[in-house]
C-alpha cells in the first residue's frame, strides 16, 4: 500500500512540471519501474484515479515501462533474469552474480496539452 505515497509523488512531480510550461491538461505520464522497486501497476492506477480527480491530470494515461530484474554473472558475463528461488547463472551455474537492472522508480516524461 506504499503505492499511495508513490502515486502522490507522481502526481506532485507531474503537476509541478506541467505548471512550468503553463499546460492546460496532462494527458499522459510515462513511468519506468523496475521489478525490484516492488510497486504494483494496478494499485498505482487505482490511487491515480482518486488522487488526480479535480486536477489538470485527471484522466491522464499512465504508461508503465516495466524493467525486469536482470543479473550479470561475474564468471561468464551472461546477463539473465533470475528465477523465483535462485540467482544462479543459468549458463555456468555460478553464484557470483550482481544486479544490473531492476531498481528503477522514475518518471520519465509527461505529455501535456
Amino acid at each position, binding site marked *: 500500500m*506504499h503505492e499511495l*505515497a508513490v502515486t502522490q*509523488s507522481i502526481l506532485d512531480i507531474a503537476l509541478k512540471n506541467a505548471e512550468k510550461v503553463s499546460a492546460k491538461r496532462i494527458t499522459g505520464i510515462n*513511468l519506468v519501474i523496475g521489478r525490484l522497486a516492488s510497486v504494483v501497476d494496478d494499485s498505482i492506477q487505482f490511487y491515480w484515479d482518486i488522487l488526480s480527480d479535480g486536477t489538470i491530470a485527471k484522466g491522464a494515461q499512465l504508461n508503465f515501462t516495466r524493467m525486469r530484474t536482470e543479473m550479470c554473472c561475474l564468471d561468464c558475463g551472461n546477463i539473465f533474469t533470475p528465477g523465483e528461488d535462485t*540467482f544462479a547463472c543459468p549458463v555456468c551455474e555460478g553464484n557470483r552474480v550482481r544486479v544490473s537492472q*531492476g531498481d528503477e*522508480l*522514475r518518471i520519465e516524461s509527461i*505529455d501535456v496539452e
Partner: protein
Amino acid sequence: MTQRIAIVENILSANDEMAQKNLSVLDAAGVYAINIMASPGAGKTSVILKTLEALHGRLRMGVIEGDLATSIDAEKAAAAGLPAVQINTGGECHLDAVMIARALPSLPLADLDLVLVENVGNLVCPANFKIGVHSNILIASIPEGDDKPYKYPGMYRGVQALIVNKIDLLPYVPFDMEYFRGGVEALNPGLVTFPVSAKTGEGMGEWADWLVGKVKSK
C-alpha cells in the same frame, strides 16, 4: 496539441530531499542514526532492547518508534530512562522522511550519540523510502526461512548491515545458511552480517561493537 516534457526524476525525490535534511539535522547535532527494518516477528523490538542494554553506559541513545504494534515499546524505552518518541503512522506501511522530520525535535539530540529508528514491520514498502539516517539495518530471522532474499530482493538492496536473528533456532528449523548468504551476496555484495540471538545474547556483542565503531568514527 500534445507536447512531451522530459522529466527523468526519481518518483520519490521529494522524500529523498527531506531525508537529506534529516541527515543534516542529525549531523549538525553530532548524532548517528540507524533505521531498523524487518518483517513482523523477526525480532526488531527484542534486538533493539538488547542493543540498548549492551550499549548502556557506552553511548547516549534515543529511540524513534514507528512500528504499528509496539507503542508499548516506546514506553519501555522511556521507562529505561531513554528518550523515546512514538510515531503514529496511522496505519501506514512504512516510515517516511517527513515522519522522521516531525519526530526529531522531540528528541534531545544535543545530548545523544545514537538514535535507533524502528520502522514498520514490513519486507516490501520501507525499502523505497529513505528516512535520513546513516545506516539502514535489516533484521532477518531463522524461522522466516532461507529464501527471503530471493522473495523480497528489494529489501536487501539498500541496507548497510544485516542481522540474522534467532540463530538459537538453527538446530530446529531447516535453514540453509549458504543458500541464504548466496542470495544476499548477489543483491548486496560484501554486506556486513551479524548472526545473533536476541534471546540468548549470542552475537549481540559483535553487533554492538560494530555500532559503537560506526558512532565513534562518525
